[in-house]
């Protein structure tokens, strides 16, 4: 009995090191998104290229899609355009862009100009690839805020009923897609 007592520190330490070991192989920054399992927040926002067209959660329903928060100011977003175009063309993934407008700084004479932005986006998509069915313009960043976006790029998988099923922070590359997002996307896309 008394002898066993002296093994307690060793046992506790070994237990702790198990957790440390598994901790090594997971990302401490990864967080469960609060939005998963909830419907898209309410919004009514214009199309980037065709501002007369208004998008609402209702109008997006019917088919599972990947919502990509991005902007041409974000180099990583540009880098993933190629692979996402491949996903669209080869696997028929429905990708909708949520264009995140950076706050402009009037001190430096920056003003928001839709025509220039449309031109810049178009040329960017021409040179890197265009994965988007269409782009929603989040002019005031309200929707991004409601979705809990902390930076760009971020991705959400939304099912046919408009329920958010996955949230990925960071870019989509073949590994991330295959190991993390594709299973979820296919699961919900396959549902009748």
């Amino acid at each position, binding site marked *: 009995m008394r002898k066993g007592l002296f093994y307690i*520190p*060793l046992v506790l*330490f070994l237990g702790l090191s198990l*957790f*440390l*070991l598994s901790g090594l192989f997971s990302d401490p920054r990864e967080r469960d998104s609060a939005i998963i399992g909830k419907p898209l927040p309410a919004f009514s926002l214009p199309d980037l290229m065709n501002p007369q067209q208004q998008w609402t959660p209702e109008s997006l329903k019917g088919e599972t899609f990947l919502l990509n928060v991005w902007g041409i100011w974000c180099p990583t977003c540009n880098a993933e355009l190629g692979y996402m175009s491949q996903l669209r063309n080869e696997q028929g993934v429905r990708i909708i862009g949520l264009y995140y407008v950076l706050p402009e700084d009037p001190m430096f004479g920056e003003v928001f100009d839709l025509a220039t932005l449309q031109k810049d986006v178009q040329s960017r998509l021409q040179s890197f690839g265009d994965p988007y069915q269409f782009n929603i313009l989040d002019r005031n960043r309200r929707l991004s805020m409601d979705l809990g976006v902390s930076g760009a790029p971020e991705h959400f998988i939304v099912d046919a009923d408009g329920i958010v099923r996955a949230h990925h922070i960071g870019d989509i590359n073949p590994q991330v897609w295959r190991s993390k997002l594709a299973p979820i996307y296919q699961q919900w896309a396959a549902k009748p």
Partner: protein
Amino acid sequence: MIPELGQLTLTFAFALSLLLGVVPLVGSFTANERALLVAKPLAVGNFVFTLLAFIALCWAFYHDDFTVVNVATNSSSILPWYYKLTATWGSHEGSMLMWVMILAAWTALVAQFSKGLPLLMQGRILGIMGLINVGFIAFSLFMSNPFERSLPFYPVEGNDLNPLLQDFGMIIHPPLLYMGYVGFAVSFAFAIAALIGGKFDSTWARWARPWTLAAWMFLTLGIMLGSWWAYKELGWGGWWFWDPVENASFMPWLVGTALIHSLAVTEKRGTFKSWTVLLALGAFSLSLLGAFLVRSGVLVSVHSFAADPERGVFLLIFLLIVIGGSLLLYASRMHSVRSQARYELFSREVMLWGNNVFLLTATLVVLLGTLFPLVHKELGLGSISIGEPFFNQMFYYLNIPFALLLGLGPWVRWKQQKAAPLLKPLSMVAVFSLILALGTLAATQSVTANLALLGLLLGAWVGLSALLEIYQRLQQFGSLSKGIAKLQASHYGMTLAHIGFAVLVVGVAMTLTYSEERDVRMEIGDRVVLAGYEFELQDVYKLNGPNYGGEAAELDVRTVDGRYVTHLHAEKREYKIQRMVMTEAAVHARLSRDLYVSLGEALPGNAWAIRVYVKPFVRWIWLGGLLMSLGALIALLDKRYRRPTTAVEVRHA
């Protein structure tokens, strides 16, 4: 060339540490005197070569050798020379080399100052230190080589040092902190040597005491400096953040504090043996755990180095060998050891037992708070974070009984103490504490029952009790002057450290309760009044530093009745290469309060966001830490520790 020489000398050091880790230990079991005698020169040689390697890296930084990857990523040619040198330990690789160098230094110091130890113990202790050296030098050489070159394609300009680290604090904070962390390796080696030998008489405790005190002193200074640095550099007046890395340094400190007290019991009374050994193993184990947490990326923290799972795996294996191995040895050896000493319920033994219980509970709180998020997530329960409120509340509750005990402890004798003789002096202390606390509060703030009053009461109780106790002790020598000369240095040290704790408690309680802050929009000429001080913004202009631009603000401070107090100069620096914005807060420090101003963003209309703080007694926090480490220094110089051992010297095993 020089970096290659550095690599070479580090490899030599590796070879020497391997010899040091094997030869004397084998010699200690085969009773080979020559094998034991070789430990000392090996330890010194190991230190010389690691020092040369460290100097080589400093040289590469000083001369902007951007062909070395580590220099290119952590320094730049426009950095002032002193920051170029400190950039040497600004990165994971460089700080690891410094860690190795300091470990080798401790090993060499043990070799130099262990003349009084039996040869057998000397050999074992140095051998164990050698094995720890092997692990860390291997980590530095094979997993995080600081001398790696990027030839032939090297950058012409470096990436610059993280602006946070471009501060005076960076020059001394990491070296002191590492001196503390690594210093516990010595207590660890003493404990392991005792475990191997199976002898736990009071001599090993006496040998281990000064080394533990030295390590604890450095760790205290290091933590205190880190706190002061964060306070002035991060720009929002916080001095402790319960950040995982701070916690990683706090845990060995708490266990080290418990160890110092427990060693006293083991030395003087020959009891608490198994407990003391466990604490000695624990202090260094927690240092290692801290190194792992900081360098493996399992936790999110402002201090983390770049994460690399391979390094983490190496460190974890090292942890398993060192901690797991030592705990296994502990379990297999310690159960047969029994302490014979008898003591009553009201005795110094029990008081120190109480000290240990509270300090270890505190360690457990910090450990759980730090690791629980990790465990929670790995169990698949999702991410959570444990923050300040949890720690603050736990420490609030722990601190009250701890401080009460601390005021009482030094009065109580070994073995048995009668309550009656203590009633008079202690009730005197209690009454004076009440008067002092209420008086201070009435003079500086207003008298209300709050955290500040509690802090002042506890602080006064601990401080006054320590003072009265040493006064009474001095008088026991016949006269006061005779007593001052005759009292042991360690007693002065203890009293000073306890007063330091009292000062710290007062500082924390007062700052938490009475700090005032305001975020204001100010144009030039605007004034803001806070806690009886009026701050006037006089000018804001462009800055032009060696490697930064930005803005500086000039403020005058007056009391509300118009008396001039001081002029403040706050900066907001934009570092060119790393494109980072740093605040350099302006601080006017007095014992009773700090005035603290940090400059924020420019706002439309020629105005600036300015943050103003008045923080009463915040200096007392660091003053307390300083007194504690000074106490450790004085205790460390006690003549008793330098007397040759009276125990029978065992020349042959």
